[in-house]
């Protein structure tokens, strides 16, 4: 049982790390502010979600697991609203001197 849980952790956390890598590559390669915003919010949020998923089998209790999921939900809400706020600011360009 413990082996199965460890395998799941390794698989999901590795996948999460891959999306953090992809997000960073996107930040380095994408041409302008708005496209970089896509790389940041989408890839990193998926990365965080997969890290949380990978840590769930290692959580000491159901409560700890739910707490992890809650943190991910807060992170998703933050990512979704921040991307809208920054996208507006970047589109207006007035803050983009």
């Amino acid at each position, binding site marked *: 049982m413990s082996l199965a849980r460890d395998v799941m952790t390794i698989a999901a956390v590795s996948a999460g790390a891959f999306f953090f890598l992809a997000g960073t590559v996107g930040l380095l390669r994408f041409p302008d502010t708005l496209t970089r915003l896509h790389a940041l919010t989408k890839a990193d949020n998926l990365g965080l979600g997969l890290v949380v998923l990978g840590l769930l089998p290692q959580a000491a209790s159901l409560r700890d697991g739910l707490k992890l999921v809650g943190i991910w939900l*807060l992170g998703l*809400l933050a990512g979704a*609203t921040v991307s*809208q*706020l920054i996208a*507006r600011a970047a589109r207006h360009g007035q803050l983009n001197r």
Partner: protein
Amino acid sequence: MSIETVIEIVLAAVVLTLGVWTIVVPETFSATVGFVAYGLLVALIWVRLDAADVALTEAAIGGGLGGVLLLGAAARLRDADMMADARPGKLLRAGAAALSVLTAAVLAGVVLLLPDPAPTLAPAAVANAWATGLSNPVTNVLMAFRAMDTMLEKVVLLLAIIGVWSLAPDSAWGGRPGPRHQADPRGVLAFLARLLPPVGIVIGIYILWTGSDHPGGAFQGGAILASMWLLAIMAGLADTPLVSHRSVRFILVAGPGLFLLVGLAGLLFGAAFLSYPPALAKPLILGIEIAMTLTIAATLGLLLAGAPERSTEP
């Protein structure tokens, strides 16, 4: 070299690079964002050093209020930058650099000269935890063993708010701090400000409550509550209160006031100023912490809102 050491080196290198970048970059705004990012990374270092209480404070202050305060200051400075034409003279800059290098050198020297193992009172603090019935040693030190310092810190917060208010023009004295924020009530910001504060209130009270046995406490909880209040203010959903209002002033003095009263009671009925009777230690400390959380939340929020700007008459 173990993996842990490698990670510590990577973390230290990132934080140092960011620190140097923050100093070197010429633009105020970039330096400010760099500094906020730096603060968040320092929270990671505190966790790595097993100082979760400090990490929580860094995250609560650096992530929320600190960023708002510094970016606001940077926005004001940028408007001032356009008017100011003179850079500071060569002599002044050389002097500042020399002083900074000297300070850094003295600090580095002191760190290198520390005795090994460093003198510590930590075992004593842990051994005496029975006296209060709280199992978080940091809370014990703050609220019992060094209670005088903590009480005076809260008085300092009170003095700070008096200082900020005294900058108000006579016409606005007793009025509302800061501008009335206007944001689209149907925009994204207002949307977030409707969803997040209730969740933040539960989390803030949890951080306060868990502080007696786990990392957390009045300051971190208060900072989270203040952030939520500011979010509603920035989204235009709430207004800052009249500073002349009796209940506002009551909340501002509630924390240090209750602390002082309990301290005086200790002097009258107990062994010394701020000595808690062992049977009542835990409820007394919790009571003070709750009053302090309210005071800290109100004080931090009002400090960020600034001096009263709008008079009592509309």
